[in-house]
């Protein structure tokens, strides 16, 4: 390798030298100046250490043996002051024994020059150390740049997470009958878990797992959260949500990106779970007696199929209080140990069998997965949620605590909305009707009551009036599934039928009065015996008429039960005392 003299000449260096011998110092100083460098000469180690911070030399040349402070001590202090900066220190020596030379390098010296000085060797060494110094500086600068970028990225992620957390919040996950585990930074590993109470009681839970990691995976979570919370609050069904979310994802996500997900619609008063699983590991329904049903994925993930081919039908499960549903993302099954073995379904089943107290189901599974992986890091990609069915839990959303809207809205109005023919089987008018009522200022706080009244009236009209199903069927478990399959079948043949809602609202001194009339095209049903049987027995048909009587100020049936009228009086909230 040849050192190009031109190249080295081109880079003039600042060089600090220290030598107590006047003649040696004079030779070296003159030599270096002739080579084109800038030189500061010191006559001992202390002087060199003193001038170092101000002079900021590129390279330091030190005699080893000097009075006051020797070269080895000076080298140590100079290296300390230089810190991360690489300032090469070269010892000047007439030492010849190897141990003494090695000692110089141990003290932090980078090389040595022996006397008598040789111009060519000095020039070559300075050139080599200058290249090393520049490389070190480039590396340090790039490292700082990377650190800087990384810090910036983390700051951006934290900021993004704050926005995400506001939109994609966890809703009612803190309810007593829900347990869950999700990584705090789940949004960036693509896992989502939302829960939201439905206006008429019960709740929706959405658990999912986006393909990919980082920001791209997080972005898809935003529209899902918007749709999930928005539509659930407005009273839409799980199937409606699924269709809307799928359609949205198909439109916005690039090909190859999708969301494995499960939607759970829990209706506590009906003792019923509706579940849609698209691409997630089997859910597990653990009955109170310990028997398990595995709910496998029957659909493609969200964001794959166009709306025409997407199937949003949810499987219905009849449940009892105490039954427990467990859902998870595939991070659980794919958790790896040191030997790159995956946790897998068999181990999960074993862990579930061993978990005696079902309350601790999630903790038991988590502990087992972490024990299997052998490190805590294994928890990072795990998302699990368990839902316990409870006796008609009061999951009234805290709408009653909402501040009254300052907006003025309609208070005196009347409208008629009729659903007929095959639309009866395909469309629920409840969200629309609820929306109309929620325009009344002050009535928004009563959305749960209103939704309950509307949905009970509608379901009675549809199932008992139009479809002529008897609620007696629902008293047994067999009858229950027969009831729902029969319901589906009869919905396919509803031509000539209708359900008509007439809503009227007027202002009163205390608040307002909403009058709801629901008529249907059926033959009517015997609401009196229905009412009696509900009062004496705990039926699967649940609250029904009793509830409506409790909520409304009056409930009246006419036309042999095919026309129901409810009057609902409501009052403005009392000003809250300070």
């Amino acid at each position, binding site marked *: 390798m040849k050192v190009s003299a031109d190249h080295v000449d081109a880079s003039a260096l600042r060089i600090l030298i220290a030598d*107590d*011998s*006047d*003649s*040696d110092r*004079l*030779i070296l100083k*003159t*030599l270096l100046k*002739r080579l084109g460098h800038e030189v500061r000469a010191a006559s001992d180690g202390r002087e060199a250490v003193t001038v170092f911070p101000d002079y900021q030399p590129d390279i330091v040349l030190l*005699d080893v*043996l000097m*009075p006051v402070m020797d070269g080895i001590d000076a080298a140590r202090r100079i290296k300390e002051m230089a810190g991360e900066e690489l300032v090469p220190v070269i010892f000047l*020596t*007439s030492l010849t024994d190897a141990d003494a030379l090695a000692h110089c390098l141990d003290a932090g010296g980078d090389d040595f020059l022996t*006397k*008598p*000085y040789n*111009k060519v060797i000095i020039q070559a060494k300075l050139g080599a150390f200058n290249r090393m110094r520049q490389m070190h500086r480039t590396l340090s600068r790039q490292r700082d740049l990377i650190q800087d970028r990384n810090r910036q990225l983390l700051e951006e992620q934290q900021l993004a997470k704050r926005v995400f957390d506001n939109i994609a919040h966890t809703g009612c996950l803190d309810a007593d009958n829900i347990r869950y585990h999700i990584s705090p930074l789940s949004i960036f590993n693509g896992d989502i878990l939302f829960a939201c109470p439905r206006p008429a009681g019960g709740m929706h839970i959405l658990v999912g797992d986006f393909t990919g990691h980082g920001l791209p995976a997080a972005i898809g979570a935003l529209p899902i959260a918007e749709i999930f919370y928005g539509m659930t609050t407005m009273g839409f069904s799980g199937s409606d949500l699924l269709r809307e979310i799928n359609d949205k994802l198909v439109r916005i996500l690039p090909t190859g990106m999708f969301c494995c997900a499960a939607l759970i619609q829990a209706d506590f008063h009906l003792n019923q779970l509706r579940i849609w699983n698209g691409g997630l590991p089997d859910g597990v329904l653990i009955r109170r007696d310990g028997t398990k049903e595995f709910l496998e994925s029957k659909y493609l993930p969200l964001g794959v199929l166009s709306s025409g081919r997407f199937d949003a039908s949810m499987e219905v499960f009849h449940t009892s209080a105490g039954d427990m549903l467990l859902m998870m993302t595939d991070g659980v099954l794919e958790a790896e140990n040191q030997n790159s073995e995956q946790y897998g379904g068999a181990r999960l089943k074993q862990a579930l069998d061993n978990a005696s107290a079902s309350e601790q189901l999630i903790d038991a599974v988590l502990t087992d997965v972490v024990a299997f992986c052998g490190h805590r890091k294994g928890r990072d990609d795990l998302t699990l949620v368990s839902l316990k069915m409870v006796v008609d839990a009061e999951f009234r959303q805290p709408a009653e605590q909402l501040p009254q809207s300052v907006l003025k809205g309609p208070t005196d109005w009347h409208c008629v909305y009729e659903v007929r023919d095959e639309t009866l089987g395909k469309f629920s008018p409840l969200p629309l009707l609820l929306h109309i009522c929620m325009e009344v200022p002050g009535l928004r706080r009563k959305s749960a009551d209103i939704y309950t009244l509307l949905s009970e009236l509608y379901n009675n009209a549809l199932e008992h009036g139009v479809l002529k199903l008897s609620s007696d069927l629902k008293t047994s478990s067999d009858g229950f599934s027969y009831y729902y399959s029969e319901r589906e079948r009869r919905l396919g043949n509803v031509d000539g039928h209708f359900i008509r809602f007439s809503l009227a609202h007027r202002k009163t001194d205390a608040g307002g009065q909403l009058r709801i009339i629901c008529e249907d095209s059926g033959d009517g049903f015997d609401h009196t015996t229905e009412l009696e049987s509900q009062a004496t027995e705990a039926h699967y048909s649940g609250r029904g008429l009793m509830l409506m009587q409790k909520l409304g100020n009056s409930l009246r049936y006419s036309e042999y039960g095919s026309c129901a009228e409810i009057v609902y009086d409501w009052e403005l909230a009392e000003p809250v005392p300070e």
Partner: protein
Amino acid sequence: MNDKPHLDEEALTELQDVMEEEFAVLINTYLKDSSDRITYLRNAIGSADADAFAKTAHSFKGSSINIGAPKLGDLCLEAENAGKANRLGDAAKVVDQIETEFLRIQKTLKEFLS
């Protein structure tokens, strides 16, 4: 053992080339330092300071080698080793040799300059 030349002509010429007009300053500095050092060496023997003796001999050695006086350098090394081994008894004899060699070099260098 000391069969090195008194003056390395080649090294001296190169020095002259590097130092240009400062060559005379360098030679005079060297000669002044060296005669001072010979006095230090004798004083160190007088006060039985072997360490100071060795260090002075070491510096003297370095600058002699650099100036192109290898034989003097070797004599200084001998003195340095004697100092390190705390043999100041032998040292006086070496200092005498150093002085003789130095006077010889001084004469040649001064001729070289004129």
